[in-house]
């Protein structure tokens, strides 16, 4: 019997810029947690209000609290009132509220997943009828294995499953309709290379790679997506995006906040695992990667993974010279006194966990050979700022050096990721007047003002992509592995070295003096942000 192919939706033609996923049922594990309250629920509501969520979409909250649908809806409403500046519109809320459901359960309780399977089937049959399901793991990472196993054993994985295990749930799809199942896994994806491999293995028992969406919300930010557009949709940048023209690259991920209530979590992770292994390396990969053959998910992810694999490994004494780790001491941020890291709640008084990392790394590719990438990521910095700066080489002949205000400042292309998303190009210009004085001027583009519309929150974009099955902005197994491989070597050196390799910096500063020296010894300096 031949396969019957349905025609494309003729009403979609001309509307392709408004992508619409198929009807589906989404389940959030940890639906009453912080991530869900601050990010996921507001993002889903905004998507609903903008008409991005499909007709027939439903959301099931799964958590330990013994709530019913009504209590969950009240909780969601409260979260939205709290988190959305513009508040909740009654008309939009009534449509959204109808789509919300709740099922209480322990993550390691198999019966809870059987119940979830029944509920999903019932809701799907009533509202969507597609059998499509998206599972979002927003629970503590320690519960991931139990959730993955619970989903698989209840027959909710949608893949081939384990041949040795008989699934006990109901599939929920109407006969002959199948439907897809996808799982979104929040960071941290493991705490080192071997634990990440173990987690991947657990996922692969029940899900295929194309069903797994490892989220790094930095990749959902407009400016991060714009890195590739900027590079590849403009004829003038890509020709100079290489070792011939670029002097060095700086990547800064600065937070003004300390660890706050996340002390115990941070004691287990540190900044290298919390920020560098995922966010920073993904930003670096987008700058360093080769143009993909197409914008298909795997074509883009192939190039990102290649860039990460091309990172020159740092180990042993190289780590001592090229990686600076720091920890903040008491100081002032924004004029307010703040605690040092060791005084934070849940932090050991003798802790040597790093809250700051600065590194000089090299990407050993034809394009970037010899070009240093300076990376810094830290907490309790003077301000919150994430930026990628490409500093270009000076012109070959400095015609205006003598008597022209000294050596002109180099051209810098700065990609501002947050908080004020945009791009700045610094160029030299003649100062008006009789002499030739070269002064830097900035050509500025800001998302907030240039397009006159709000940029979608990173989670809105990534939730939509996961509903659409577009994995371009999600991390693949090989990228995660390459990132951990790079980071683990550095951490191994730290573990064998003594405490003196930890540099203390005052809260509200740009990190320890050793970080400034790291760049200065190459005749360069960190950008003032």
């Amino acid at each position: 019997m031949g396969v019957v192919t349905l025609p494309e939706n003729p009403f979609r033609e001309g509307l392709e810029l408004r992508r619409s996923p198929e009807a589906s049922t989404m389940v959030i594990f940890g639906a009453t947690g912080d991530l869900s309250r601050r990010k996921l629920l507001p993002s889903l509501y905004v998507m609903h209000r903008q008409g991005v969520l499909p007709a027939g979409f439903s959301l099931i909250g799964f958590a330990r609290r013994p709530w019913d649908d009504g209590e969950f809806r009240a909780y969601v409403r409260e979260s939205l009132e709290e988190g959305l500046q513009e508040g909740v519109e009654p008309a939009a809320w009534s449509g959204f509220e109808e789509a919300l459901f709740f099922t209480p359960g322990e993550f390691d309780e198999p019966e809870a997943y059987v119940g979830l399977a029944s509920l999903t089937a019932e809701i799907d049959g009533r509202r969507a009828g597609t059998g499509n399901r998206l599972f979002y793991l927003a629970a503590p990472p320690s519960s991931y294995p139990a959730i993955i196993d619970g989903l698989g054993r209840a027959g909710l994985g949608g893949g081939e499953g384990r041949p040795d295990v008989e699934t006990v749930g109901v599939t929920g799809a109407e006969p002959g309709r199948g439907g897809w199942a996808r799982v979104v896994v929040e960071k941290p994806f493991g705490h080192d290379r071997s634990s990440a491999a173990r987690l991947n293995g657990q996922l692969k028992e029940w899900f295929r790679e194309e069903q797994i969406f490892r989220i790094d919300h930095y990749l959902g930010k407009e400016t991060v997506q714009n890195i590739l557009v900027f590079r590849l949709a403009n004829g003038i940048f890509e020709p100079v995006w290489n070792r011939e023209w670029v002097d060095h690259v700086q990547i800064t991920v600065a937070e003004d906040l300390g660890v706050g209530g996340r002390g115990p979590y941070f004691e287990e992770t540190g900044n290298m695992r919390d920020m560098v292994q995922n966010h920073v390396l993904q930003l670096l990969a987008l700058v360093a990667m080769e143009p993909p053959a197409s914008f298909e998910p795997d074509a883009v992810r192939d190039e990102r993974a290649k860039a990460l694999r091309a990172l020159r490994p740092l180990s042993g004494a190289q780590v001592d010279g090229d990686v600076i780790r720091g920890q903040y001491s008491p100081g002032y941020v924004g004029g307010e006194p703040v605690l040092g890291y060791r005084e934070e709640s849940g932090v050991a008084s003798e802790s040597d966990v790093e809250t700051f990392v600065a590194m000089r790394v090299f990407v050993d590719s034809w394009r970037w050979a010899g070009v240093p990438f300076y990376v810094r990521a830290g907490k309790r910095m003077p301000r919150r700022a994430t930026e990628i700066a490409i500093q270009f080489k000076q012109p070959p002949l400095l015609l205006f050096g003598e008597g022209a205000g000294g050596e002109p400042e180099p051209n810098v292309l700065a990609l501002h990721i947050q908080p004020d998303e945009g791009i700045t190009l610094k160029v030299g210009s003649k100062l008006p007047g009789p002499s030739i004085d070269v002064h830097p001027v900035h050509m500025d583009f800001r998302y907030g003002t240039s397009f006159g519309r709000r940029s979608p929150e990173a989670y809105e974009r990534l939730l939509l992509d996961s509903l659409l099955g577009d994995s371009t902005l999600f991390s693949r197994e090989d990228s995660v592995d390459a990132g951990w491989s790079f980071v683990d070597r550095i951490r191994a050196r730290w573990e064998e070295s003594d405490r003196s390799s930890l540099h203390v910096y005052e809260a509200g500063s740009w990190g320890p003096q050793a970080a400034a020296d790291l760049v200065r010894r190459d005749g360069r300096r960190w950008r003032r942000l």
Partner: protein
Amino acid sequence: MKGEGVPVFVREVPLSAVSQELESAWSATDEESRRSRGEGMLRLRELNYVVCARTEAEAEVARATVGRLMGERPGRVVVLVDTAGVPGGDPAACRLQSTSASIATRCLLDGGSGQRVCSEEVVVVASGEEARAARTAVFGLLVPDLPVLGRWIGSFSADDETLLWLGEAADHLVVDTGAGPADVGGPVPGRRDALADAIETMRDMRVLLDAPMRARVHDLSWLRIEPWRLMMAELFDDPSRRRLIPDIGRLSVRHAGASGQAVLYAAWFDSRLGGVGSVSVDIQEESRGGEVGLVQVEVWDRSDRDTPQLSLSRRPHSRVISARVTGEHGRGQEVTIKTLETPSDEEWLLLRRALESTRPDPVFRQAVGLVGAASSA
């Protein structure tokens, strides 16, 4: 930046001296800014706006609309008032009333930086001069190398020389097929000629789309029905509903004072199903207490059932559209499957949408081409 901007400097100047006087205006605005706020202002121009209106009242409304848009896309505005067809007015289109113009600078506070951001406006009231002179003057007033948004206010005729000139001068030409005399007067239930007017306007639109012009033509009515098109498209994203497409027999469209939107929607629907008269169309008008726009769309199959398969309807006095289906998942009754508050269709937001479009819209062209065939009320 929000709002329409505060005029800081307004002056009547000879047309020939507009550019030079604008420089004086900017100096004066900057001085005023330094005096009152202790810092200079930022002069921004990223667009040219050329507005052609028939009366000064229309021009005033258009200026307010463009003013809203300038809050986000600052630029230079040139307004020409076309008195053609207005009782007592000059029969020629877009002609200069005199050799004078009014220039103004408008400033807004940028919420992010707190900086004062200013743009400029040049108003030329038309009558008494040759059309050629008016056009030459406008060309001279455009800021070079910036995109031009041309906005034609009111009804139009595809052979209007000035409209075609505007289409050549601009990168985006925005007209409104819903601005014909029948719809502008407000809804009058049972009026038959509104539909005829709308169909006639679409014929003009077809000619305009085929005219050799630089500008991409946008229709505000087409943009206004976009949420309705999206909702319909979304219903058919479900593969099980796509199977029903061959059985669609009839489309019913109800509107309030929006014949242009109704015929366009019907034609779009027909075009999506593959052609001329593939479904029978029923368009009805109703009064909604001053509300204007589409009210309800129903899709019927070819059976003699007494309920539509799918329907979209807008709640009175709101922008909320509900999508309903009948007889799915083994249930006979009508079920609401999606309720959506659609975005505002204020004109300045539609102009922004037009500016953001980067590609020609073949679907619009197809729909316009089918208007006469689909709108057999």
